[in-house]
């Protein structure tokens, strides 16, 4: 939302620190796995076309 790269770096750091437990104990890290899925997914670009106002 903000485009602030520092926040991305923080999130990557947290995910990387917990990568091992996420893989080994997924029942305890469901939300982290969801966040990792979001992180590793390609962005979807939407183009809204219409007459300018």
């Amino acid at each position, binding site marked *: 939302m903000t485009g602030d790269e520092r926040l991305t770096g923080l999130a990557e750091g947290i995910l990387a620190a917990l990568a*091992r*437990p996420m*893989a080994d104990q997924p029942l305890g890290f469901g939300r982290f796995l969801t966040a*990792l*899925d979001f992180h*590793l997914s390609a962005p979807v670009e939407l183009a809204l076309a219409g007459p300018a106002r």
Partner: protein
Amino acid sequence: VANRLADETSPYLLQHKDNPVDWYPWSDEALERARREDKPLLVSIGYSACHWCHVMEHESFEDPAVAALMNDLFVNIKIDREERPDLDSIYMSAVQAMTGHGGWPLNVFLTPEGVPFYGGTYFPPDDRMGMPSWPKVLEAVSGTFTTRREDVEESAAGIRDYLDRANGATPNPSPLRTEIFDQALAALHQSFDDRNGGFGGAPKFPQASAFLALLRIWRRSGDPRARTMLETTLDRMARGGIYDQVGGGFHRYAVDEIWLVPHFEKMLYDNAQLALVYLEAFQAFGDPRWARIAGETLDYVVREMTGPDGRFYATQDADSEGEEGKFYVWTPEELAEVLGVERAAPSAPTMGCGRAATSRAIRSSTSSAKATATRPRSGWTRRRSTRLGSSSTTSEPAASGRARRQSDCGLERDDVARVRPRLARPGPARLPRRCRAERRIPPVRNAARRQAAALDQGRRRQDRRLPGGLRQRRRRPARAARGDTRRAVAARGARPRRDDGRRVRRSGGGGILRHGLPAPSRSSPARAISRTGRPRPATASPPTCCCGSGR
């Protein structure tokens, strides 16, 4: 005469204000008294909607003889885990390390310095189900504390060391690759219950965050195992007693592995997340059953878990009018009364409602999986509406408001808001007014608001002293507070760390007194404590009969 809890604002603490036990709230006063009198502390933790907390209160804490024993041997502290999740987390970790399981009510014994050395969950008033009676536990703990102080100190140091290690560990960073999902899927599949859905055996908790992760793993990989695990689990849960077949919404967990017999309290956080799980499953797989469950769950949240100002209640009590699950259990006679004899006849087997061997006909508006699979939809829906009307007008669960707490409108509000537009269905799942949590709450006008306001005032007033003399900063986020508290417990110890061979193990350890308690089938007191104070492997766990920990 009311005890010290009478001045508290927590509903759970207020439930104990008339106990003959000389309860303290968590306070410097209690800790100082323990140090001054060199008495162990008994810290008892629970929450207002917890059934077995109520049971232990009625059986033991209201008994003058038991209370006299507690008052004589210990400095007694009551904690509401919904008010102090940081303290609950510390002592739950300690008890899990000592006994291999946890839950509420959580009863943990501390040295006068505030370090746990023995604990457990529910204890009966007399020897029962392989568990020692509460009075025997009290006497055994006190006796050991008095006569074998060095062993107690050594055990406490081990537990403190365990908590220190558990909270101080820093994992090694690993690359973020999609293989993590493959490994996670394999791990989930390994513990999956093919027949009944869910993971592991009894008790079974709905693990919503794992379900959401599984959905994403399925979308990413298309692995059929992920879809099968999800569909089996969602199906069994929706057909089980853990789901309120009449009113919608999920109970907290099932005591068995087939999702049949629930513990009846309903938590906002479970229902908010499970509505999202079922909705996303509907989006992913297109099965209209999942949309129906999501809709019914949201209808329930709006109808019974939403306050007049749009804020949400956090929990709904397991007990109604003093009876566990009263509003959720149907006898054949009650069904006939509501539906009429003719319509009740086909309903009863569908709901699994018949005479059972237990004293209470059968517990639930529950449907067995087999019966539900063949149930006639339209007729069922009509009968369901009739029963819901009945329960709402005659003995509505919402009336049992004593245990309700206001939510902070965080995750749950977001989840409800996210699910609602995706359902694309007309219906009552509509929030009456926008939540006002972000803004200043207007002047108090009713009981729920008065309670919320009192809680806020109480929090501002409360001098949050922590073990080790640290003071928690007011309004600090719970996560930070918890970390500080754990460090405080760990920092106080001047003892050197043990080597790996002697550290407390998370599972298995019986705790210092486990084998010394006068349980009917346990070892003799002569073997009470191992020479090293090292926890021993657990013997058979006692039956889970408290509100088990979902962790």
